[in-house]
């Protein structure tokens, strides 16, 4: 799929921007802190319904608008395999209470919940902070899986939300039990729902992972060439009864039973998809502990490339590729490889501080836009 237009109002540094977008490669060039990344952030916001980097959503609204109780709007037209949709996401600071932002979403003019927006536009964002996928805490890798699965299945979004809700309630009971404010019978009633929703989340992750792992291994091989292979392992805190299968609700319940004592002491639920991880290893050596930064970077790239491929397969409609300032960290050969692979998708939006970093083969057919001081200008190419 591809964006044919993008419009921003009071979004971060952009007061008003109307942009038509083309297929193929669009290069957003400009010095640091001019707003290039904000453009990609806006597109990704439409894809997954939240910002991948704003700590609070109020940050997304330009300072003046937020102070005045105003609003920001991000809108886009998306041409998909079978139809065309208009997405409009408003962030309203006029709710009266300080720091609250009300999100209003419309798809083709019809109001939608944020959870129903996910995946209307599918996109994959590559950014410099992806190195945390390889080096960082398990949370980042779980989020990677959840965002990917959410873009392929609305059922997953809703199931995960229900799971997290049950989990939060159950943890509140465990805390209350620790303080002597709740009894055993109050805990047990949350378990059937925790097991049912949790097993559904695990089944979906398991099924996707079966395909994702080989895709990532292959992508890494293309990037790294010879050398140790990348192996991915889903580390589950709930073990399946049959090896190779996803844990059923019964397995979940049995595992919960086994962790009763510890969770009572900890005051929180210690097993389930919210505690799982993806273990990444190169030739049997754990990436998080022993890989070089260069290797970790390639691992992260491989995960993103696998994500894009899986999304394209599952949706039958390739995602929009967003490359946020990732070229400067790669050598020339890898820059060429990544761009070549990205250009296998219908639309690529790329930000860079230096045009010279864009491989000439890609640049030749690219549209170049110059971003300066939250303005976007067409670069006249000779």
């Amino acid at each position, binding site marked *: 799929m591809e964006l044919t237009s993008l419009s921003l109002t009071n979004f971060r540094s952009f007061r008003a921007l109307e942009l038509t977008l083309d297929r193929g490669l669009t290069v957003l060039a400009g010095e640091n802190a001019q707003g290039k990344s904000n453009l990609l952030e806006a597109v990704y916001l439409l894809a997954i319904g939240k910002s991948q980097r704003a700590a609070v959503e109020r940050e997304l609204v330009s300072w003046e608008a937020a102070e005045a109780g105003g609003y920001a709007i991000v809108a886009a037209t998306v041409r998909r395999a079978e139809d065309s949709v208009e997405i409009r996401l408003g962030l309203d600071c006029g709710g009266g*209470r300080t720091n609250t932002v009300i999100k209003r979403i419309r798809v083709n003019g019809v109001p939608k919940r944020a959870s129903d927006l996910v995946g209307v536009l599918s996109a994959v964002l590559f950014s410099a902070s992806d190195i945390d996928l390889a080096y960082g805490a398990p949370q980042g890798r779980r989020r990677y899986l959840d965002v990917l699965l959410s873009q392929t299945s609305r*059922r997953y979004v809703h199931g995960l939300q229900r799971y997290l809700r049950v989990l939060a*309630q159950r943890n509140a009971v465990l805390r*209350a039990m620790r303080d002597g404010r*709740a009894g055993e*019978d*109050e805990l047990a*009633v949350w378990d059937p*729902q925790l097991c049912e929703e949790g097993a559904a989340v695990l089944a979906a992750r398991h099924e996707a992972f079966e395909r994702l792992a080989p895709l990532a291994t292959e992508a890494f091989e293309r990037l790294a060439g010879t050398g140790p292979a990348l192996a991915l392992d889903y580390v589950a805190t709930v073990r399946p009864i049959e090896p190779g299968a996803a844990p059923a609700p019964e397995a979940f319940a049995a595992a919960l039973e086994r962790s009763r004592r510890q969770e009572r002491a900890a005051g929180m639920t210690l097993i389930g998809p919210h505690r799982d991880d993806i273990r990444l290893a190169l030739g049997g050596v754990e990436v998080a502990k022993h890989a070089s930064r260069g290797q970790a970077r390639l691992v992260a790239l491989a995960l993103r490339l696998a994500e894009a491929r899986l999304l394209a397969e599952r949706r039958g409609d390739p995602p929009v590729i967003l490359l946020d300032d990732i070229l400067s960290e790669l050598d020339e050969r890898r820059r060429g490889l990544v761009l070549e692979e990205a250009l296998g998708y219908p639309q690529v939006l790329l930000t860079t501080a230096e045009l010279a970093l864009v491989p000439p083969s890609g640049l030749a057919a690219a549209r170049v836009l110059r971003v300066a001081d939250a303005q976007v200008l067409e670069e006249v190419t000779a």
Partner: protein
Amino acid sequence: MTSREPLSSEAAHPSLAPPVARLIEQLHKLPGIGPKTAQRLAYYLIRMPAEEAAALAQAIGSVKEQTTLCGRCRNITEADPCRICADLARDQTVLCVVQEPLDVLAIERTGVYHGLYHVLHGVIDPMRNVGPEDLHIRDLLTRLTDEPITEVVLAMNPTVEGETTALYVRQLVAPLGHKVTRLARGLPVGGDLEYADDLTVARAFEGRQDF
């Protein structure tokens, strides 16, 4: 309803007469009323004829004074027992357990149910410190042993908290030997399969019936 922060400086503006500011403040506490709506309502009330405003004030005052919880079903009522509990023509063997008084109204409007009710006044919600003992569950068990009830219909909302509360009630009721049923979950009448969310369709499928 969660507690609200005090109104912004706008509401306490010196150009506002203190009684008006107080009214706006009170209206803003109501669910679904933001600061702007509170202001609009306040000025609407100011322009109201005095007797209408007095009638409104009196209605608000008397609703607290003249209502109580029904000693049997815990619904909000003027007379105890309430009209439904006092109506001997109703089926005394079926008891429908609901979350809120408004749910009784919703079921009564359908006209298909002729049994009795029991209002829990909430659901188990540990994050908001609402446990089973904060709901009218103990009263329910007393009724089940004292009254000739044979079937208990659980009509909680299909939310995470509603389901858990239903499960909790079922666990307590099961040893007493009553038949326990729950409302079906599925597609809205007049709805379009295509536009229903996945979970609803899935639940409707699980709950399919002979036809």
